[in-house]
């Protein structure tokens, strides 16, 4: 399971970075989304995966009797997912506006030439 997850994380990071390096605005956003998912899985993996042992103390005991799954990484991932959801939706609206105004999807054509003409 860990090996598989590690491979998936590596794949997501690689794909994300590749997409960021493209010139298209849409691919830039897709790259950021992929990287965000890669990070979430990374936290999940590094927080140690423990199968079938929920962090609930049995009624008759005061402490954990055996190893348990750490709930913190899941809380972190949930927070990160919610935040990145908000950011991504903003980003998508932004590129739509940019496309409407600039009429191009190409990052290199977002020039600042006119900057020097009139300020």
């Amino acid at each position, binding site marked *: 399971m860990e090996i598989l997850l590690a491979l998936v994380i590596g794949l997501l990071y690689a794909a994300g970075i590749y997409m*960021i390096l493209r010139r298209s*605005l849409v691919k*830039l956003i897709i790259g*950021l989304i992929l*990287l*965000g998912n890669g*990070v979430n899985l*990374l*936290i999940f*993996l*590094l*927080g*140690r995966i423990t199968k079938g042992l929920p962090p609930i103390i049995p009624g008759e005991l005061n402490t954990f009797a055996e190893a348990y799954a*750490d709930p*913190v*990484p899941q809380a*972190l991932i949930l*927070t*990160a997912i919610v*935040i990145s959801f*908000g*950011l991504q939706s*903003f*980003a998508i609206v*932004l*590129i739509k*506006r*940019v496309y409407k*105004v*600039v009429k191009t999807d190409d*990052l290199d054509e*977002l*020039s*600042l030439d*006119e*900057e*020097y003409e*009139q*300020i």
Partner: protein
Amino acid sequence: MTSKLILLPILYQAFMAVILLFFWRRPQIQRVISVVGSAINVFICALLFQGVWVDGIVSVQAGNWVAPFGITFVADTLAATMVLLTSIAGLAVSIFSAGTIVRAQVKYGYFPIFHFLLMGLCGAFLTGDIFNLYVWFEIIIISSFVLITLGSEKKQLEGAVKYFALNMLASIIFLTALGILYGLVGTLNMADLSGKVAAVDNRGLVYVSGLFFFVGFGIKSALFPLYFWLPDSYHTPPFAVSAIFSGLLTKVGVYALIRVFSLIFTDDIFIDQVMLAIGMLTIFSGGVGALVQVNIRRVFSYLIICHIGFIIIGLGLFTEAAIAGAIFYLIHDIVVKTNLFLIAGLIFKIKGTNDMRKLGGLYDGWPKLTLLMAITLFSLIGIPPLSGFWPKVSLILGAYSLENYGAIAFILFGSVITLIIIAKMWSRIFWNPGPVLAVRPDFQYFADMSLKKRRLIVTPIVLLSAVTLYIGFGAEHIQQLSERISGELIDPTIYINAVLKPR
């Protein structure tokens, strides 16, 4: 008593934002509320600062969960100082916004978002939990996205794309570092991390995590190879927005760097060396970049980058004198950089352009305002006894005690190049008579504004100039403050004890 005050700056800003939301369609009321509220906020933050100054570091545990299990908020001297400076810059920009932000933009929620941004800043300064720091960073960037795109002009949107892409990437890198760190030690509380990270055997992964933090915060604070987004975006939004961005947004990245590398990754010679090299290159590239620009706001943007280098060099040297210099510089920089962009706004209102080739004759037309602007410009260069001079003395002393002459050379180079740039600007904008500009028909010039509006534009500049003068002439107090902060940063045991063993 002070521990009850820690959360107040954050909660107060949230409260302000919510109150402002109720007056969504009433721009005039929003302006009044924002200015009055920001003035009260300065008072609250001063109370917190005074409390921390008298009682030492205080901490509060959210939900009364014992540290390190819950989220901790800590106000040490550095955090309290930053919060106080945030409130002062916030007040100045709030007044300036009341005078310059147009009705249409206020109707799109400028003021509530502005106060959410300030809330995020206060939160980032006061939190003692590294994941919570990430959350505050996200609050800051999402508010700043809205502010930077407000108005939706073509130029603004182009700047915003670069701004949002790089900042989102920085957050992802920060989160990666955080994930690795949590996997190594299993805690998120910064005080708890401090001891546990030092005890980790797998140093390789600690370095990887540390470097990821450095890159993530480095993008946010616009360090050498990662700064290109800043000059491309900071000159596009309204002046009030670029003032608060330049004063505080890059500085929160620097604050995070100082916090993480003084508390968590301490004994790391390699990262210190990297930091020194990056700091020197940042000074060089920022200074040289500023030389060739013609738009005033772009010149100032490059100067932000240049001067971040001083702070990073101070942090890389990591001696008591150097850190004190870096902190002093940080305090000076927040006030001066905010004021610089307000001044750029004032020049724009007077002349209708920010292009240095078209500007001129300000000294003849507006001698008193020129004098006012001179205070800030000369402080920026660091002409003694103004505020930019004193931190450089500490920085150079710190570098000298380590016999690091390269750092001294670059600090001097940064100062000289700032002098050249400001001298060039001074002769072009203020002394040179300048070409006759065509009158823009749809533009309201400063000279035609009502007295009330003119006051709203000039008051914040006067306020920040007064603070700058105090930092310069009351340098003894600021030096004392910086040395105390530096002592706390070099020896984090007080911080750790304040969090893990609360009184």
